[in-house]
């Protein structure tokens, strides 16, 4: 069909971010011109945020199944079997753009949105984690703004999660210039339920009533999904009205009411209203079930008068759910919501014609096939070239460094310092399941109903991925799995948050493709299939793209028991480096924290990963944790060996380390080669035997004791510092940087 686009229409299309080709497809699907409401509906459903149109062809490369996966991508969250008839649902989601425009509400509603994704499936949320990225707090130009964004985001998460009653148990906080005008707020949530308590977002059963529950619809967040699919310009500040306002108390009531209503057996399908609100929930529920939905906007509870059909359909007001009930049992559901003081209204019925038919006072104002909205969005195999990078391969000549002052500098840096100021604002203990909370390698939550605990880790590394998106992403998967193995958990499944720049730029699209392919390879290797996630593109401000920043959330399982701590609790333990000292060359130092914090440069390649070796090291460390051989354990990540050693002393017991190596001191102590886990043990021979069985080196590097950290290489003392000094540098850095 040839499309004639006049000037007025061109303006409308631009406003709705619909290309002329996409408009042509709309015309051929509808067989007529859409009205404004329909155009709005298409614009949000076909937005990048809702349709994944730029990433879908590549997302198909990801593994999505193993023997524990009960539900893979495509539903509100992925589901994993954890045994004893119990299951967990989990997913990660971004709220990057809203958090820049309005940090407090942006982050708060990010938490609210992902929690609804979890309990809409019938699971009770038991944990939240956050991966946060900001511009530098000490930036001359934007430091004050970045500090305000961080404080606002943290308060927003704290406000929402604490009031809702879900513990926020961990995450990561990273500072980088590229996030200066484009902070990243990725929120992970996990819930638990029994196998027979799982609900899906499907509008099955022709004639069944469609019920709206929760908060009234207002004018907030209209077209949020398409805002989130755009790059930032100077005008973005004027988009504040597209950010929604959250009410965690309402959400808590909604949680309790939904779980109680599900127990009646009268609910057929249920979905939360998140991005694209009423539009997305109706069309997706209908599309999944192959049914139509016919409903009248006049029945939708509204907060304001005079709202147009366009506004009601596109509103992103928070704390709303859509459910389909068994015909004749509506009242049972309505009674439960009344008990919790929540509004509910029958707004329409399920039909057999596959159409989303929206009426206003009986008159049809939009009529589109559900499938066309949910599944027929154009897919783009966007052209890609070589991944963008503007960094040399070779770094500066190695300076004659003072390792001790370098170590202090690194411990006091934004990326490596204690995030206590942040996580003490989160209630990380509510529901008394938190066996290991924030600040450790992995968070561990017990499932009270069974003898199983769930460990979880969130990780990303924009620097590694900027230098090499494929290898960088593999390193992130390996790091997450290593975190879990360190505490004795078996990694079982993953969720991903793909934060990238503008996919219409071939060199950015190349980052996306390489990263997804690396993720696919690593997730297949570690048998941690992706069960769902989120794609956030167009993370670009004034032409500057963020580093490619895929964030992984990986969960593992272990038997419930006192957790293996990070800090060594006693003197006289042997410190063993499972996996050995590792190796590096100058090129592979370029993405490390040493390069960033000490040399202030970025070059070369990320550390080298041998996945088979990594797996063996993890198997050995996991067995050491499970058999009680590791009294304390900590995996080596950013900052390398010296930083990990320092962190192991923060329980108050020092250590003395003797190393023999060909590497220069700064490389030996700060390289970030993977596949290494520090273990404190009372039974060195047993640990050595175990390591030999797994065919990995177990290098004894020293002993715990005293009140200092002392590190020497070939007899030369390089670090000899009281742990109090290391600790206070590390512990106070963030507060000092925030000027609080």
């Amino acid at each position, binding site marked *: 069909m040839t499309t004639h686009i006049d000037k007025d229409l061109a303006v409308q299309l631009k406003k709705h971010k619909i290309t002329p080709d996409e408009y042509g497809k709309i015309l051929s699907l509808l067989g007529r011109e859409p009205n404004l409401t329909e155009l709005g509906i298409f614009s949000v459903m076909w937005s990048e945020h809702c349709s994944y149109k730029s990433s879908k062809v590549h997302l198909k490369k990801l593994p999505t199944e193993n023997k524990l996966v009960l539900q893979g991508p495509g539903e509100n969250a992925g589901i994993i079997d954890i045994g004893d008839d119990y299951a967990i649902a989990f997913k990660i989601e971004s709220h990057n753009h809203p958090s820049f425009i309005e940090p407090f509400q942006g982050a708060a509603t990010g938490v609210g949105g992902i929690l609804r994704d979890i309990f809409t499936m019938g699971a009770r949320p038991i944990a939240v984690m956050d991966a946060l990225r900001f511009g530098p707090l000490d930036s001359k130009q934007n430091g004050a703004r970045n500090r305000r964004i961080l404080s606002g985001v943290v308060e927003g998460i704290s406000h929402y999660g*604490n*009031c809702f*009653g879900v513990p926020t148990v961990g995450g990561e906080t990273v500072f980088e210039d590229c996030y200066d005008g484009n902070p990243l707020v990725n929120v992970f949530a996990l819930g638990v339920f029994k196998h027979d308590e799982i609900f899906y977002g499907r509008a099955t059963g022709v004639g069944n009533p469609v019920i709206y529950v929760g908060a009234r619809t207002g004018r907030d967040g209209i077209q949020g999904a398409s805002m989130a699919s755009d790059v930032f310009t100077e005008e973005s500040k004027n988009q504040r009205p597209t950010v929604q306002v959250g009410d*965690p*108390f309402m959400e808590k*009531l909604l949680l309790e009411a939904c779980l109680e209503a599900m127990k009646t057996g009268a609910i057929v399908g249920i979905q939360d209203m998140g991005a694209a609100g009423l539009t997305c929930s109706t069309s997706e529920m209908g599309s999944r079930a192959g049914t139509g939905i016919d409903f009248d906007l006049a029945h939708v509870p509204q907060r304001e008068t005079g709202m147009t059909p366009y506004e009601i359909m596109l509103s992103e007001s928070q704390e709303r759910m859509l459910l389909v009930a068994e015909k004749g049992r509506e009242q049972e559901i309505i009674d439960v919501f009344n008990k919790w*003081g929540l509004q509910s209204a029958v707004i329409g019925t399920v039909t057999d014609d596959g159409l989303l038919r929206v009426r206003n006072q009986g008159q049809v104002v939009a009529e589109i096939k559900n499938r066309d909205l949910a599944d027929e969005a154009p897919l783009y195999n966007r052209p890609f070239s070589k991944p963008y990078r503007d960094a040399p391969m070779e770094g500066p000549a190695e300076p004659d460094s003072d390792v001790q002052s370098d170590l202090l500098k690194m411990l006091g840096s934004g990326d490596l310092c204690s995030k206590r100021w942040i996580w*003490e604002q989160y209630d990380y*203990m509510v529901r008394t399941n938190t066996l290991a909370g924030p600040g450790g390698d992995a968070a561990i939550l017990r499932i009270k109903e069974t003898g199983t605990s769930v460990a979880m880790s969130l990780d990303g590394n924009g620097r590694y991925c900027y230098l090499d998106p494929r290898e960088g992403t593999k390193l992130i998967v390996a790091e997450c799995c290593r975190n879990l193995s360190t505490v004795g958990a078996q990694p079982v499944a993953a969720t991903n948050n793909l934060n990238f720049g503008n996919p219409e730029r071939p060199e950015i699209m190349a980052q996306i493709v390489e990263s997804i392919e690396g993720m696919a390879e690593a997730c297949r290797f570690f048998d941690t299939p992706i069960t769902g996630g989120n794609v956030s593109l167009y993370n670009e401000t004034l032409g500057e793209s963020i580093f490619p920043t895929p964030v992984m959330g990986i969960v593992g399982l272990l038997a419930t028991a*006192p957790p293996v701590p990070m800090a060594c609790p006693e003197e006289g333990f042997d410190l063993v480096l499972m996996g050995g000292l590792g190796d590096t060359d100058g090129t592979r130092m370029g993405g490390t924290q040493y390069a960033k914090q000490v040399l202030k440069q970025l070059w070369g390649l990320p550390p080298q990963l041998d996945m088979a070796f990594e797996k063996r090291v993890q198997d050995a460390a996991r067995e050491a944790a499970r058999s009680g051989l590791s009294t304390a354990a900590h995996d080596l990540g950013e900052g390398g060996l010296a930083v990990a050693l320092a962190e192991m002393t923060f329980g108050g017991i020092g250590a003395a380390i003797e190393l023999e190596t060909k590497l220069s001191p700064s490389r030996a102590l700060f390289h970030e080669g993977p596949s290494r886990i520090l273990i404190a043990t009372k039974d060195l021979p047993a640990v050595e035997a175990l390591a030999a069985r797994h065919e990995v080196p177990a290098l004894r590097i020293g002993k715990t004791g005293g009140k200092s950290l002392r590190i020497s290489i070939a007899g030369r003392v390089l670090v000899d510092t009281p742990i109090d000094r290391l600790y206070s540098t590390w512990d106070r850095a963030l507060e000092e940087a925030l000027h609080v």
Partner: protein
Amino acid sequence: MKFGVVVFPGSNCDHDAWYATTANLGQKAEFIWHDSTDLKDSDVVILPGGFSYGDYLRCGAISRFSPVMSAVKKFAQDGGLVAGFCNGFQILTEAGILPGALVRNRNLHFICKTIELRTETTDSPFTNQLQPGQILRVPIAHGEGCYTADERTLDELEAESRVAFKYVDNPNGSVRSIAGVLSEGRNVLGMMPHPERASDPLMPSSDGLLIFQSLLSAFVRT
């Protein structure tokens, strides 16, 4: 012994209190919906932590009008044992069952951490299993936990040994480091820290269980 755990809209430590009294203490517990005035023959009523009514207006300011609170007030007047933890303490002060008020933490932030409490009196049904001055490690998790009252009230509380616990290292700016207080009849305790979060061997501390064990011992004696 039977515990009644009141559930307000927005309570979120209700289940934790139930778990501590059943699984950890080994006694019976039942939830009481805020709309009811039937305390279900409970021997102890617990007002749990959380954000009842979203903490809108002021923490506890709306909950005190819940129907259950008139029953709780009467129960307390008749000598019944009532414990309010965190939000429960805030509700008890709003309802006038305990003196003083809880205001915003000194640093204006929510604080979640395990802190040390010093036992100020062992002469109460909540503390009879403790030693004078005994230190308990118990978590706090609140944004409005700064205890305040006028000087005369504070002097009275101290003179009558009605300060149950003080913070060793005052985290929130509470006057005289007060963490928990008793009613005149010593049968109502309000405290900001969460003993129900420190009652299980798998939690970082199980010192809080001593408070529940004190209640059990008081009950057995009567």
